[in-house]
């Protein structure tokens, strides 16, 4: 049954607030298709926004987002309200919505933009008006032309209904792994290459020309769109007090049903993995390819930044990659490390030379031709690349490999004695963007 023909509502009455952990994807579950403007308004009602940038609205929104406890959904998990507050004093700022999703295993921002583009645009417009931006740019990776086309259709619908208060444009930077890093993205928007920038002082705003740019992840914007409608108490009704709200995750790896899901923060990891109907789970890769491996014995942990933090893991960009017990974690990690080395921006020596060296050591270990000296050299190299790039790319790669060394200690011990491990000959599990990447 479709609800697209339901009469348009004004602000929903308090008793009629959407309940349950399905918020961002509510329209999708109702209709099974892209929410056009009519369907979007039927589900969520119109959003009251000031006609032009307004500092009082900015204060109100920053306060609402602060009380909601929303954190960025792009990977770093920084409190969104702090970014809004910092941007409030900027002159002629620009808002950049980051839907680059350079992480090959992640599909959640694309899924969200495909099925609920108006929710992202609502939040982006609210954020722009709050920080005093009259322009906003949504960045979608070049190869995702279909997503950009749907977004342009959505923009045209808003123009047709006279709902546009801010100049909105869609841009398509190259879809490399590092292009979605915020300094690379802003550099590209300013006419440069999509490569990270060295920032001596981390607090200083990124700039396009002289204009400061605020970069926000697409999913984060959609949450802001809902908080602006329903308020912070509603947002906190799902999730945990210390990690409120819902989040999108991409389930990938050895699953019968991979896909994008919306879950309440704090859901047990085991229940999340079960959504994908896996075979016997060996380990889970959390966050993304610069994330953390977690052994199956930790599956009862709550999926929230504080709980995962106690195990040294983060939610990152929401990737939950399942490795079957039958596969070799060291071989899989070698494959991912080779990919990450290849995706280096090629700017910083420790990353340019260090990541291929790390990948090679791992590959030797995986093939059973590495010994204790290889292992010790790998540990040294992981230390040597950490914290030594302009961006976090080498740090992420090192974090993932380090977590593999402890998570797959049993496999590693077998490899170090030049014995084949139980997962020998298992086909590659985690998805990589190019066909040539199916094998290390």
């Amino acid at each position, binding site marked *: 049954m479709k609800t697209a023909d339901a009469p348009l509502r004004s602000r929903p009455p308090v008793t009629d607030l959407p309940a349950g952990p399905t918020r961002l994807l509510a329209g999708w579950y109702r209709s099974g298709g892209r929410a056009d403007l009519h369907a979007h308004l039927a589900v969520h009602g119109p959003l009251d926004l000031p006609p032009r940038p307004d500092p009082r609205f900015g204060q109100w929104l920053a306060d609402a987002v602060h009380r909601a406890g929303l954190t960025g959904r792009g990977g770093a998990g920084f409190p969104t309200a702090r970014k809004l507050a910092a941007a409030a004093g900027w002159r002629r700022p620009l808002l950049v919505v980051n839907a680059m999703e350079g992480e090959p295993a992640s599909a959640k921002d694309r899924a969200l933009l495909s099925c609920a583009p108006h929710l992202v645009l609502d939040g982006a417009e609210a954020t722009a008006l709050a920080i005093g931006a009259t322009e906003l740019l949504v960045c979608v990776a070049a190869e995702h032309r279909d997503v950009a086309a749907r977004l342009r259709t959505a923009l045209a619908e808003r123009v047709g209904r006279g709902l546009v208060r801010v100049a909105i444009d869609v841009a398509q930077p190259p879809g490399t792994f590092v292009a979605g890093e915020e300094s690379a993205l802003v550099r590209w928007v300013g006419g440069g290459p999509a490569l990270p*920038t*060295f920032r*001596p*002082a981390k*607090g200083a705003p990124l700039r396009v020309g002289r204009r400061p740019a605020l970069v926000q992840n697409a999913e984060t914007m959609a949450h802001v769109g809902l908080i602006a409608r329903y308020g912070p108490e509603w947002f906190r009704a799902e999730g945990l007090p210390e990690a409120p709200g819902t989040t999108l995750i991409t389930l990938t790896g050895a699953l019968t049903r991979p896909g994008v899901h919306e879950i309440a923060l704090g859901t047990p990891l085991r229940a999340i993995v079960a959504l994908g109907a896996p075979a016997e789970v060996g380990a889970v890769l959390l966050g993304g390819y610069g994330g953390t491996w977690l052994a199956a014995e930790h599956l009862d942990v709550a999926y929230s930044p504080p709980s995962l933090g106690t195990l040294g893991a983060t939610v990152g960009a929401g990737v939950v990659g399942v490795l079957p017990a039958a596969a070799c974690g060291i071989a899989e990690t070698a494959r991912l490390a080779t990919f990450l080395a290849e995706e280096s921006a090629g*700017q*910083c*020596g*420790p*990353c340019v*030379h*260090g990541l291929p*060296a790390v990948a090679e050591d791992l590959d030797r270990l995986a093939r059973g031709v590495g010994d204790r000296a290889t292992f010790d050299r790998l540990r040294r*190299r992981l230390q*040597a690349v950490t914290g*030594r*790039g*302009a961006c976090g790319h080498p740090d992420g790669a090192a974090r993932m490999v380090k977590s593999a060394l402890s998570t797959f200690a049993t496999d590693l011990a077998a490899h170090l004695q030049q014995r084949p491990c139980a997962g020998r000959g298992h086909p590659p599990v985690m998805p990589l963007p190019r066909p040539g990447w199916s094998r290390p």
Partner: protein
Amino acid sequence: MSERLRVDPVRCDAFGYCAELLPELVTLDEWGYPILDGAPVPAGLVELARLAVRQCPRRALFLEQVPDPAPPRAMRRPRAPRVTTARHAGPTRR
């Protein structure tokens, strides 16, 4: 206010002059890129550190001002680090 050495990893091309001039503060990784420990430069090495900054062929090395560790009773708020780039500390300024 003390200073610490930092390197712009994008500019650095592993010439290694900094490690030759300042082995006390700079070691090189296996690929020849400097590893800096981020500690304040001891007073006795500040002049050498300035020389290393000036001598860097890629102008990748720079000194950054860092607030001194607050004395136990002081309630001053730490200030954000201020940055001096190689360009500002050029050969004309001693």
